[in-house]
């Protein structure tokens, strides 16, 4: 070899550090998932006037461990009519991208496994798409009607909501003039982007929830309709892999919301790597909002979900790109962008309000028709 290739000629020590870093990331994410399951049980319990887990350990803190043990010890059933190879490969296709995107998500400026520079944000978007494939294959491979339906729903929903996510990420990259995660956070040093670009935060958060299938958008494994969708035939360890991926992705959406809009790890009092405390505090705050939404909103119907994606989210994300471009091109002061995003939010919010709650709403129409029928039958 005459050509020195630095990418591939890693020394043994570097290789060791890469492996150690990946292991550390894996462990940290597993601990995070355990904490998230406990938090979700407790918070949902409180929202529903229950206590949540109390028996296992103090305040039910050992509940996630008990859950994990139960899942591992459970019998792992593989249906006889399933496509064995696809049935096995689907959970891997879901969980590997979920872990892979964490390679480049920074905790603080230096606390990142591998800063991919200008490709960071793009890499995250690219690999989060691959996970959808696993859901589709899981549904098809388990040779189950509900599974296949769930897989199809997953493909339709996730591809639709991918568009607003990517559009808003592009708008943020335009604001920061970079796709580098660390640079995006540093550009928010004086003010986080939520202040100038609240529209972006709203679109990203809603579409992000849909991307990970949190409750108002969990149409592809809706228990009450298709009894778990792609996961219907999975049990034990295989199912827990999907579960792991779902929580890691939820955490990733929260982390990306914090990094792109809430100023990442920047905050007062802390310096250096201690800033990760700010980062974690913000991420967990976003996570609590996600759980809160899960506890309070009913699930959408599939047609409502798709209509919302294509009639509201996609046009709104185009609007977000256009106002960002106009703002950057003319070099207006930041508050103009705030005004423009709030105007977009207000218009859309008012339109939705008129549609569902205003006097012209469908419910009012139905009521009027019913009253007309009543008065006619009374005559």
């Amino acid at each position, binding site marked *: *070899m005459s*050509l020195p*290739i630095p*990418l*591939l*000629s890693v020394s043994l020590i570097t290789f060791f550090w890469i492996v150690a870093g990946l292991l550390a990331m894996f462990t940290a994410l597993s601990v995070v998932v355990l904490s998230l399951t406990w938090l979700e049980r407790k918070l949902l319990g409180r929202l529903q006037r229950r206590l949540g887990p109390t028996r296992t350990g103090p305040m039910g803190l050992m509940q996630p461990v008990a859950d994990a043990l139960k899942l591992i010890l459970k019998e792992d059933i593989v249906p006889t009519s399933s*496509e064995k190879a*696809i049935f096995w*490969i689907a959970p891997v296709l879901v969980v590997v991208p979920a872990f892979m995107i964490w390679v480049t998500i920074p905790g603080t400026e230096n606390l990142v496994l591998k800063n*991919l520079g*200008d*490709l960071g944000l*793009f*890499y995250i*978007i*690219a*690999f989060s*798409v*691959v996970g*959808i*494939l696993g859901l*589709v*294959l899981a549904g*098809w491979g388990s040779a189950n009607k509900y599974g*296949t339906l769930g*897989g*199809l729903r997953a*493909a*339709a929903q996730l*591809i639709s909501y991918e568009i607003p996510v990517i559009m808003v990420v592009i708008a943020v990259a335009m604001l920061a003039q970079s*796709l580098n995660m660390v640079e995006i956070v540093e550009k928010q040093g004086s003010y986080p982007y939520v202040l100038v670009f609240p529209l972006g935060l709203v679109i990203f958060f809603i579409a992000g929830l849909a991307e990970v299938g949190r409750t108002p958008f969990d149409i592809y494994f809706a228990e009450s309709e298709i009894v778990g969708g792609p996961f219907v035939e999975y049990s034990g360890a295989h199912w827990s892999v999907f579960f792991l991926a779902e929580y890691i992705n939820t955490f990733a959406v929260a982390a990306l919301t914090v990094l792109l809009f809430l100023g990442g790890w920047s905050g007062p009092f802390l310096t250096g790597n201690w800033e990760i405390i700010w980062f974690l505090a913000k991420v967990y705050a976003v996570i609590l909002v996600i759980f809160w939404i899960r506890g309070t909103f009913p699930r959408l119907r599939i047609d409502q979900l798709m209509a919302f994606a294509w009639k509201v989210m996609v046009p709104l994300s185009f609007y977000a790109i256009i106002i960002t471009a106009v703002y950057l091109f003319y070099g207006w002061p930041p508050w103009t962008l705030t005004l423009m995003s709030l105007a977009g939010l207000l218009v859309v919010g008012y339109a939705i309000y008129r549609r569902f709650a205003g006097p012209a709403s469908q419910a009012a129409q139905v009521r009027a028709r019913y009253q007309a029928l009543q008065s006619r039958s009374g005559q």
Partner: protein
Amino acid sequence: MSWILFIALAVLTLGGGLGVVATRNVVHAALALLLSLLAVAGIYLILFAEFLAIVQVLIYGGAITIVLLFAIMLTRTAEYPRITDNRQWPLAAVASVATLAVLAGSFWTKAAVDTQPHNPALTDLANSLFTRWAIPFEIASLVLLVALIGAIIIARESEEGT
């Protein structure tokens, strides 16, 4: 080291391609296609075209394969006989042999230049794409739009026919 990686990736690419044409199950064929496309992304990576590799994963590994699987699952694949006898195979053979001939010919007449690994910055890429190559870029998107409208029209016609 990079030779070993290249050979491994080439084997995966070709194996995936063979799998696409050899398997009798359409979903398996789609999976083999995925393997092949991801291995091509790996080849881009050892050529230092990191941006291209990520685009390959995003467009082909993610979107295209998902849409393919979606279409396969919406059609009732079980009703089709599981045969790979496609009447268009002579045409496909001619097309692929012609492509091979063009590629081999270009290598034959012009020896492969000893290229240096060169990773252009994202901004350079964007600048050349949207200034120098802006018109081909726009034409490509126009082609996609035409394909989209064409697909809708074909789907509509078959709907009215039944």
